[in-house]
């Protein structure tokens, strides 16, 4: 993997009615999988569209592979683009969609056929070649969109929330697929998402963008372990993200050591280094140990109580964060320093292999 910067943004500013990009600078290395993470409406899509050349920035420069393309039209940039809603050409078959960029380049027809076939094999859609997009499932459509973008052998691949419109099962499959494709083709990629889990699992580095500003750029570990400010912490910190190692897996129930805790989780992963995700809403806080089916019960001291309107966020000294209703917080009269129990089911724990 080279160290040359493949995508450089220098002080890019662009103001639209509802969205804006403010003075964003960024360097993405060649072959890197870079994730732009941020809440909805933070200008992530707009930034991608600027890189692709669909808009011209008010200020700043965009450099792709050493060439200043700030004023270059999109068709001259050799950038692959995939939208959340797939944006397949509805009047063309799958094969025609994938071939579009090659036909535009006036390649010989047999060469087009060969490359399209190769691309459709890569993303696993060969059996769909004569179908029209409207007859495909969301996951299939997104695979077509990815194949179409990769077919032109782009210098840069831009993915705008490519997994967000998919159902959870398909999302996971395609997420793994993106990883595999990136390893196979090694195209410099910027992937936009609001999903923290997705960002951690895919990214070499993450750029956190909030309200059109680049708050921080760094490795997933850096970003999640020390968010630069409260805004970032609020966006990043609501999730329980732990690193751990599976000690044993008996009949689909794994025991994971995460330093302080020993967590039971339902997963097929047999062994190795993993990430553990627990949604704070899945954690129940109680004064006494709960007599329930929850396999995970941990005692801890309250180190932080944050009022979030109807909800209260409770942080314990063992690292777990829970979101409970204001009502139940008041009923239990929770205050700082209290010893409480945090319980959650093994089924509420999401486990994912840690590659790097």
């Amino acid at each position, binding site marked *: 993997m080279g160290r040359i910067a493949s995508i450089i943004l220098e002080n890019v500013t662009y103001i639209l009615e509802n969205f804006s990009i403010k003075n964003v600078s960024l360097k993405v290395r060649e072959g890197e999988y870079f994730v732009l993470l941020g809440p909805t409406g933070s200008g992530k899509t707009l930034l991608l569209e600027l890189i692709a050349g669909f808009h011209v920035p008010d200020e700043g420069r965009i450099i792709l592979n050493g060439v200043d393309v700030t004023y270059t039209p999109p*068709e001259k940039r050799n950038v692959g683009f995939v939208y959340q809603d797939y944006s397949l050409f509805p009047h063309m078959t799958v094969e025609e969609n994938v071939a579009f960029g090659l036909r535009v380049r006036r390649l010989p027809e047999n060469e087009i056929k060969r490359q399209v076939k190769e691309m459709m094999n890569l993303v696993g859609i060969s059996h769909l070649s004569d179908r029209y997009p409207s007859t495909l499932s969301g996951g299939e459509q997104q695979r077509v969109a990815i194949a179409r973008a990769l077919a032109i052998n782009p210098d840069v691949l831009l993915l705008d929330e490519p997994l967000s419109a998919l159902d959870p099962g398909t999302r996971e499959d395609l997420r793994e697929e993106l990883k595999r494709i990136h390893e196979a083709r090694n195209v410099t990629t910027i992937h936009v998402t609001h999903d923290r889990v997705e960002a951690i699992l895919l990214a070499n580095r993450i750029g956190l963008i909030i309200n059109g500003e680049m708050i921080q750029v760094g490795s997933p570990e850096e970003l999640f372990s020390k968010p630069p400010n409260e805004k970032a912490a609020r966006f990043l910190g609501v999730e329980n993200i732990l690193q751990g190692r599976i000690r044993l897996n008996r009949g689909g129930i794994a025991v994971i050591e995460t330093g302080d805790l020993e967590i039971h989780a339902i997963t097929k992963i047999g062994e190795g280094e993993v990430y553990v995700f627990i949604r704070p809403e899945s954690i129940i806080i109680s004064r006494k140990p709960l007599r329930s089916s929850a396999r995970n019960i941990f005692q801890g001291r309250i180190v932080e109580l944050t009022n979030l309107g109807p909800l209260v966020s409770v942080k314990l000294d063992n690292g777990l964060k829970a979101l409970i209703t204001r009502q139940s917080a008041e009923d239990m009269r929770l205050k700082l320093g209290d010893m409480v129990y945090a319980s959650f089911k093994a089924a509420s724990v999401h486990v994912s292999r840690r590659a790097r």
Partner: protein
Amino acid sequence: MTEDKRLTWVRRNYLSIIFSAIGSIVILFLVVALFNMLIQQALTDPGSLIEVMFDEEVLKSVALTLYASFLSTMIAVIFGTPLAYVLSRHKFPAKSFIESIIDVPVIIPHSVAGIALYALLMRRGSIGSFMESIGVVFEESLWGIVAAMFFVSVPLYLNAAREGFQSVDPRLEYVARSLGAGPIRTFFAISLPLAIRHLFSGAIMAWARGISEFGAIIFIAFYPMVAPTLIYYRFTLYGLGGSRPVAVFLMLICFVIFVVLRMMSRRWGGSHQ
């Protein structure tokens, strides 16, 4: 039980039932007005309807009407499509003004349109005198008819085409551009095929509107007579008996043509939508 069900259905849907009853008056009026003429003709004087079908003057005027309106529609398509696309894609200062201008021919009386066109295109008119010098005469000619038809029908095409282009997601064009297609290629490969049904139905509407025009045409070109002019002319000379057969004939022709065109446009591009 079924009695109960029926009652429940009525209770749940009584608003739609009342509205349908009111609405059927509209349909009834349209149907009766057209069929009354047809039936009257068929009952009282079927012979002259047959005669009209072989009347050279009638056939010529019908052919002229269809042809002139076809030309006017083609001009609307050639010049209107780019305008409609620009209006669907861009915001600019004078946009709402331009959009209002487009709708003017729909709201002004057709006699007013006729006077305006006559003043402009007559031999001594602002443009007419220049056009005559290069050999194009509007007064009492095919081009006068085409100009009048164009004036009243182009809004229908423009609005349908603009709506058609608006229905095409700009992101599809963005993606096509990112794949290497320039603006022109993108227009012809993506935007146009996806809007084509709207364009086609807009063209049919414009053509129909041209065929039906009378008011604006007679000011600039009473001759050669288009079918609506001929019908009016015969009405003033021979009354209902002389004009009705031509009217029925024109109605039948229009009806057949539009049914065929509708079927064609439905078949077009139906596979993916």
